[in-house]
């Protein structure tokens, strides 16, 4: 509980996010793995990588389960233990946590954690149905409550309790689209106007099309090492100094609060305590903006602002690039895209770039401490990680 490294990130890769017509998930993953291998020439993957944990949410998209072994095979690593982790949209946040368990156990000194999803070949109605599988069946899906619907229920409650507005949510979309316009790997590299967001078609009121993250294909791949070995492979490791993961009831209706996620608060508390840091120490964060409201809620759950004040925080501009605490510099799930199984470690990828000074036009100057916040389902899982770059 002193900020000591749990594991070191020695390399990272990310496929282009967007539409990969004609590519299968395992093929998309191989591009993320290749980038991670190319970035770290001292790593000999076949010799060094001892285990793999791959986040993948849905068999339904490609009629393909068992993604761990498929990803290992297409990464040229056949033979190593390879396991798919599934925690809905936090599947690769859970993969990262699993990789940390593996390294800390001493069973594997170097492991790959990552994730992949191939979604764009399916219709919006099909994707709506598949994503809803991460929510409660007998009391939510059975009653026609969709995934956007669950977060809309939270947004409505927050608006009623704290006066949060649709404009506050729209500002999250505007900010994250701007950041994505600076990210060559983002799905939608274009700015959007506040009016465009506010006048877009309703999906689940008060959430509209431009409040929703994108249906995207993509993969992410992170190489973790035992901290003592990291410098053998790279001059610029990034240390993971805090890791929290927590569960909550799968049904939103069973929870005490409808305006915050207890899982995220618990995971954050664990991670902050492990890192011996407080919210004001964070210099850059990637948060789970599957819907614009969820970025606002994350500000409160992570302690970036007091409860009920997230609308004021987005209004202040402090979470924009150039602000006190830039959030979702990658463009977030909103505009970089949300290939659900890939998202958790795609957030890690962005923090890795930021803390090693490789984020180009969206670089946060001198960023040394970062945080990622990955949510599964309507909050039945949350994973929060805290990272430190070299001084």
């Amino acid at each position, binding site marked *: 509980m002193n900020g000591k490294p749990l594991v070191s990130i020695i390399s990272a890769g990310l496929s282009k996010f967007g539409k990969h017509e004609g590519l299968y998930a395992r093929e998309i993953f191989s591009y993320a793995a290749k980038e991670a291998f190319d970035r770290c020439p001292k790593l000999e993957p076949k010799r060094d990588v001892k285990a793999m944990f791959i986040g993948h949410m849905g068999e339904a998209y490609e009629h393909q389960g068992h993604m761990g072994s498929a990803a290992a095979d297409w990464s040229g690593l056949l033979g190593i233990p390879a396991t798919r982790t599934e925690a809905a949209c936090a599947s690769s946040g859970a993969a990262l946590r699993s990789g940390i368990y593996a390294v800390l156990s001493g069973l594997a000194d170097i492991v790959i954690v990552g994730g992949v999803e191939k979604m764009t070949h399916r219709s*919006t*109605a*099909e994707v*709506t*149905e598949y994503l*809803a599988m991460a929510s409660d069946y*007998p*009391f*939510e*899906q*059975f*009653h*026609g*409550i*969709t995934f*956007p*619907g669950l977060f*809309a*229920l*939270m*947004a*409505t*409650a927050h608006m*009623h309790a704290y006066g949060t507005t649709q404009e506050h949510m729209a500002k999250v979309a505007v900010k994250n689209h701007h950041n994505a316009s600076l990210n060559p790997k983002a799905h939608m590299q274009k700015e959007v106007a506040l009016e465009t967001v506010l006048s877009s*078609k*309703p*999906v*689940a*009121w*008060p*959430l509209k099309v431009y409040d929703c993250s994108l249906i995207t294909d993509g993969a992410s791949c992170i190489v973790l090492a035992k901290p003592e070995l990291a410098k053998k492979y790279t001059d610029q490791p990034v240390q993971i100094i805090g890791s929290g993961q927590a569960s909550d009831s799968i*049904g*939103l*209706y*069973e929870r005490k609060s*409808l305006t915050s996620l207890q899982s995220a608060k618990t995971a954050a508390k664990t991670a902050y305590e492990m890192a011996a840091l407080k919210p004001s120490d964070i210099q850059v964060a990637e948060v789970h903006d599957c819907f614009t409201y969820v970025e606002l809620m994350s500000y409160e759950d992570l302690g970036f602002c007091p409860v009920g004040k997230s609308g004021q925080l987005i209004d202040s501009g402090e979470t924009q690039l150039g602000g006190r605490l830039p959030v979702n510099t990658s463009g977030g799930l909103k505009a970089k895209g949300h290939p659900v199984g890939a998202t958790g470690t795609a957030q890690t990828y962005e923090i890795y770039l930021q803390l090693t000074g490789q984020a180009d036009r969206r670089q946060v100057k001198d960023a040394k401490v970062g945080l990622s916040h990955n949510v599964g389902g309507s909050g039945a899982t949350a994973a929060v990680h805290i990272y430190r770059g070299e001084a």
Partner: protein
Amino acid sequence: MSTQVPFTIEQFYKFMSQSKLMAGKCAKCGKIHLPPRPICDNCYSTEFTWTEISGKGKLLTYTVIHVAPPQFQALAPYAVGIVQLENGLKLPGMISSVPQEQIKIGMELAIDFKACSAGQTWPQWQRYCFRTA
């Protein structure tokens, strides 16, 4: 009693088709489970009694769903909400027979056991909804 009728979600829906909103009450610690569970998450007891609860309550939050999964597309746009029942427990469900622009947080609603059906092969449970009290 507990030996006859299992304390399960399926049994909850069977009671629904008899127009009863039934919860399981733990015989050991007294916790009321909605939906019922076979094992108490508080004290791990497996002994329960059925308790009928009021289907009246207040709307805590709501949304109107426009983009629906395939089996609900014919109903869209439709309103869903979470209702806090008189005993404090919560249930989600569709809100029917209330014009969508008149739905307000805090309004009184009551469960309607004979509700809207959407084509479904499994499970063939009766779907309740909420109406004005």
